[in-house]
């Protein structure tokens, strides 16, 4: 039996509408909730626009000033005489990111075993380590940098420590997730031939988790080059210091050159790290799981 579209009358449609209301439109409650959600989001957006002065003349003045003063004065970049110095400071920035990531990984490695459910039987210890790691990474790099600059003085050391502390938190989370996902049988195998605790970790655990750890660590290094480049804004070393200094002195064209150096360096590191990760561990996975723990 076939139904031809031309044979359908309005009455048929109305009858079907009564019989199967769900096929024609969502239930009233669902529609109401939908419009209420979108409506209240829109209302809140409007309120925020009003509250923060987007709807005033000052905003338009700011926009024209941004175009006339900031964008127009950024170009063309000048200060090529300082370029060697900028490159040197960019090198310092990358070194900060490298050492910070390394220290973070070194702190996190033993802690991540404590934070894994399958390695630490004492639940409060495991849970406590996890929460401690969460606490470390819930503050932004800049907040830690601000504290370290106050405590150990201006300079790259404060930046390195800030990165190391946040990364300890991130790596404990990432590493312990890798450890929790490992295959128990290999550890049992080592235990069965009489391996002690250390040997079980060395031959049962590490071969399984090391590629994942290396890949995550490299990815975070890449990410930390970006972080390190702004820590200087609060005095924690690196190219951010020069950038903030030039911007505050209204030397926008030189600032523009610094931004270009920064962007090019970030691209170069991304590219290198991607090649390294693919070479070392054949890591073609998407980044999403790591991204989750990253504060970009």
């Amino acid at each position, binding site marked *: 039996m076939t139904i031809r579209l031309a044979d359908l009358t309005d009455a048929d449609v109305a009858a079907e509408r009564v019989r199967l209301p769900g096929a024609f439109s969502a239930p009233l409650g669902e529609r109401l909730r939908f419009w209420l959600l979108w409506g209240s989001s829109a209302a809140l957006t409007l309120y925020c626009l009003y509250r923060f002065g987007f709807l005033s003349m000052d905003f338009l003045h700011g926009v024209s000033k941004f175009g006339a003063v900031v964008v127009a004065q950024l170009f063309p970049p000048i200060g090529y005489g300082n370029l060697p110095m900028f490159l040197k400071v960019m090198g310092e920035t990358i070194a900060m990111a490298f050492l910070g990531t390394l220290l973070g990984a070194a702190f996190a490695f033993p802690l991540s075993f404590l934070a894994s459910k399958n390695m630490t039987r004492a639940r409060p210890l495991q849970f406590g380590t996890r929460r401690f790691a969460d606490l470390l990474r819930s503050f932004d790099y800049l*907040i830690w940098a601000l504290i370290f600059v106050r405590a150990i003085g201006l300079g790259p050391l404060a930046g390195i420590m800030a990165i190391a502390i946040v990364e300890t938190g991130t790596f404990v989370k990432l590493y312990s997730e890798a450890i929790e996902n490992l295959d128990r049988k290999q550890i049992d195998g080592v235990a069965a031939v009489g391996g002690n605790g250390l040997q079980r970790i060395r031959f049962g655990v590490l071969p399984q988790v090391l590629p994942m750890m290396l890949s995550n660590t490299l990815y975070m290094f890449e990410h930390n080059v970006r972080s390190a480049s702004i820590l200087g804004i609060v005095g924690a070393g690196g190219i951010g210091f020069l950038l903030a200094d030039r911007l505050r002195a209204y030397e926008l064209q030189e600032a523009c050159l610094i931004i270009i150096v920064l962007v090019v360096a970030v691209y170069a590191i991304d590219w290198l790290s991607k090649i390294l990760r693919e070479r070392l561990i054949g890591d073609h996975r998407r980044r999403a799981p790591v991204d989750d723990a990253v504060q970009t």
Partner: protein
Amino acid sequence: MSGVEPPRGAAARFADEYAAHRRRKRVYASLFAAAFALCVVAAGITAKFDVLSLIQGLPRTTEFLIKLIPPIGFATFGVDFGEWYWDINKWMGSLLNTLLMAYLATVLGTAIGGFLSFFAARNLAGHYLTYWLTRRLLEIARTVPDIVWALLFVIAFGIGPLAGILAITVHTIGAQGKLFAEVNENINPLPVDGIRSAGGNWWQEIRYAVLPQVMPNYLSYTFWRLELNVRSATIVGFVGAGGIGHDLFTAVQLLYFADVGAILLIIVATIMAIDMLSERFRHSAIGKASFAH
């Protein structure tokens, strides 16, 4: 007897080969370790890593961290706590500002970034030049850190939350534009073809064939972005772009340790609460995503 006796010396040959393999591996490993050690030393010199000042600095850091929490007696808990949070009204106002800044920047950035993402998706962009230009634009928006955008906007818009919102918005446009474009590129093309064959225009293709497929992923990314933007909104205040970061920065500069501690506690509680909420929302959004396929 079907078993074949291994020729004499096979075991010895295996042992030799295995030893050679081990030697090769050891050489590679030590070469790699040497290169790595060289990198560490080079980085240490470049970044002027100084163990002595680190050792001197650590007790001062601990001292700083201890001073963040003022003495709170068990019996006088209410009074002490009230004294610690003496400026709670101002801080809560700043916190509200911070959250609203993050919200507005997420909405504006997602709207603009979402719009641009259709031009940054290879399968929807139309012309290659449009695709290329949009991609580069989004790249610049997200590679320049948001706090650098904040420094630039503070010059034009003056000190205050407006500059911070714009800075986070620009960064959000770049990030969302790229993520959404990737979602757009992974859609099933059949519905698009269907709309096109029924005579739909570009806008109708987007509205009826693309949006229903991508919406759950969009929502999930947007909640995640909101979470990240709350973090950003807490720090743009360091350069005068509004929010609770401004209070924190001032307190640190003036060495009001108890205030620093109080504000940090507010920030960490907020971040953790937002993380939890956002995770719940994202899971429900992802649940819908699997439902839609």
